[in-house]
């Protein structure tokens, strides 16, 4: 559907491929595959951050958060030492899939179907930065990233944002969220 190619380094020319990107009743569904091989001593992992003008961004007092980070329900169960408060993650690692997710059959692609309730007025915008990274110990090296998202309007409709390469400020926010929430890791 849409291919984003790795620009340099040992994986130059390999890519991520957005194979599904469709509007749902209350949000959007995305599926991304990749063809990047795993090198000895390294892991290929997805890293995703999310920003919004409502919901968990407001409740957690963080415009941009490593996904998932919120409160309530069975997802947000693990408190992060670096970010005290009501919001919790799903594990202590900065990656999208937890070890339990992977053991349960998730991956190697990324699958997400975010949604939000109808806002009382205006719109709720939600924007994601999703990156494929090569992980060596505590070093997370970004290979390629995309930005995507959607708006939920007060009339209930959904407007899907175009998939694109993230802007420099978006990548800066992405990196800052990772550093703040999971400071034990180094990000490049």
């Amino acid at each position, binding site marked *: 559907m849409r291919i984003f190619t790795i620009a340099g380094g040992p994986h130059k020319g390999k890519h991520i491929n957005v194979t599904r990107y469709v509007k749902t009743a209350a949000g959007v569904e995305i599926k991304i595959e990749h063809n990047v091989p795993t090198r000895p001593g390294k892991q290929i992992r997805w890293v*995703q951050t999310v920003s919004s003008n409502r919901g968990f961004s407001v409740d957690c007092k963080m415009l941009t958060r490593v*996904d998932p980070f919120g409160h309530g*329900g069975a997802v947000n169960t693990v408190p992060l030492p670096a970010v005290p408060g009501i919001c919790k993650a799903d594990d202590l690692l900065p990656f999208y899939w937890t070890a339990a997710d992977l053991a*349960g059959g998730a991956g190697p692609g990324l699958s*997400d*179907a*975010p*949604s939000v309730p109808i806002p009382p007025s205006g719109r709720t915008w939600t924007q994601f930065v999703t990156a494929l990274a090569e992980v060596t110990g505590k070093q997370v090296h970004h290979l390629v990233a995309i930005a995507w998202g959607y708006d939920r309007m007060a009339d209930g409709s959904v407007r899907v944002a175009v998939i694109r390469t993230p802007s420099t400020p978006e990548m800066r926010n992405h990196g800052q969220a990772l550093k703040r929430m999971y400071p034990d890791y180094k990000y490049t």
Partner: protein
Amino acid sequence: MKRALIVVCLLLTTSALRALSAQEDTAVSLAVRIVPTSFTETGNRGITLIDPSQHFTVVVTNVGKDTIRLWRESCSWGYSNLSFEAQDEDGTQVMVAKKQREWEKNYPDWMVIPPGDHLVFEVTFDPATWGHAPLPKPGQQRTVSLRAVYESADSKEAKANKVWSGKVVSPKNTYTLFR
């Protein structure tokens, strides 16, 4: 010609019976029960929810012969599958269901339940999560009849991942809620 018609009728009847049988199997493959936080010798059931960390339990059991898949509560496909029918002493009835929430990480995630095994829900009736929760005011108690409803919608994801769909309800019992 007449013989051919009889054969066709027999085939149709057989396949209809098979379909009905499959439907019945699906319908009875799960059982759901509310487990209160206490019982009394006289058979009363209590649910104590004084502290926000307290919960009662709903157990969904695979009573069929085959392993089944059920959506986990941590994804939107399974989040709202448990609800309750609550009835006050004056006969007022409400549906207690989870409120809509935002989903950021959300993918079809199921749990394999072998025959005789369970999916367990810890229910707090936290008003931030549950709509129309029959909670008494703090320091008070309230008697309600409760019936748990476990309903999993038939969806393309359920079909694709062979996740159970259908509806089962627990026995209706009277509980005293303490808060």
